[in-house]
């Protein structure tokens, strides 16, 4: 499984998350983006430890952070890092980030690199 960025077919600008019109050239007519797998390595820009996660997360605390990947794209993801620090190197894996009854959602989970 991969997390995809979306590359504009007109100007090559890479977006994450998906948007329908390119932020750079504003020239897309219909779905003119190529999906590109995002790199897994990056550095932690900021983070929080959430002590009251939403009710369907069966954990006591939830680590969340914004990571700048090696290609400059930023991704919000869950952290499985004991003592996170701003600027630390991290690596991402695709894993279950939210499990509702019959519906698992996958996303980026970060570990210490």
């Amino acid at each position: 499984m991969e997390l995809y960025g979306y590359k504009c077919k007109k100007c090559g600008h890479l977006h994450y998350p998906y948007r329908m019109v390119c932020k750079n050239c504003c020239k897309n007519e219909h779905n003119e983006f190529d999906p590109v797998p995002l790199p897994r390595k990056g550095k932690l820009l900021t983070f929080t430890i959430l002590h009251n996660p939403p009710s369907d997360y069966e954990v006591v605390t939830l680590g969340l952070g914004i990571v700048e990947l090696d290609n400059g794209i930023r991704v919000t993801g869950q952290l499985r890092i004991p003592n996170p620090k701003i600027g630390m190197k991290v690596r991402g894996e695709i894993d279950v980030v939210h499990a509702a009854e019959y519906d698992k959602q996958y996303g980026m989970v970060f570990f210490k690199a």
Partner: protein
Amino acid sequence: MRNVYVVGIGITSFTRLEYPLAEIAAYPAMMAMKDSGISKIDHLYVANMGAGRINQQTGLASAVIDTLSLTPAGATAIENGPASGASAIIQGFQAVASGMHDVVMVTGAERMREVNNLEATDFVATLTHPLAEYIYGVTLPSLAGMFTRLIMEKHGVTSRHLAMVAVKNHANAMHNFFAHLHQPITIEAILDSPEASTNNPFVAEPLRFFDMCPVSDGGACLILASEDVAKKINRPKIRLAGLGQATDTHAVQERKDPTELLAVRGAAAKAFEMAQIKPSQVNVAELHDAFTILEIVESEEVGFFKKGEGHKALERGDTSLTGKLPINPSGGLKAKGHPVGATGIGQAHEIVTQLRGEAEKRQVKNAKIGFTCNFGGFGNNVCCLVFKRED
């Protein structure tokens, strides 16, 4: 464009209310009608965020106008996240300024305590990006926590500064009958004492319990009218002189510099330009302190203080009730409360009360120009308003 005046105001207590949502919207509307002596309106705007999701009620505007027996006047509900209130005021302004209507009512209401706190937080979190934020368990407190950590690194804001905002706003709310929290707090109890970590546990590090606004029910209402109508009403002339709205990326991660709140900056600049005043001329302001950090950063972004110096102004006491520019004399969202859809109208209610000179123990002296900042999303949709007393 015609001039638009606030001729009547009304508000409920921001607290847990045990009556239906339509009545929470209608009660402040009745107060505003009594306040202005107006009994007939051209249009009703109802600001609300959660009726469909947490109260199982849609089409709220129809319910409210009928509750008030004001049919067949037009009625529209407006949902724009936590900025619904000021968004509805902007719509009402446009209707009167354009000449389409002479008298409109803008009422906001929310009944969030119908669900528990976790469900209420989850409901507000649905305004985050569905795939890039929400699925990870991102909530508004967690976005605020990540934002706070960056501001602390960059500008040297500390937990003590955040606690000072909470202490100030709780103290102001003691003089506001309608405030949710009538609970004076001290830095010692929430930060320094051995019991502080019990009194004030972490919610979204580095933010603690007393950095968060409460979950409130509540409603607030303004009646807006043209100059001709306002002239006939024997109340102080408060003109809605400037309005500005701006947006930013949906997902917070996409912002070039995540420590900047560009939508706040843009909305404030537009509002000041329209009102033809400078930020330094403002006498009293209500800023959207859903989290203590936001009062500090918004006070910089709207132009009251230089970037990175909001916490220094706070330290000097500039923003306290007797300071140079009192911020959140009502208690702010922090202590007055945050019934999301009603909040922007609640802020305007406080400013009009201040400019009328009717704020009693929390009155800011000689207040002639007031400002509100209503912050939607995590800074992705922001409305700012400037009010001027004209007599």
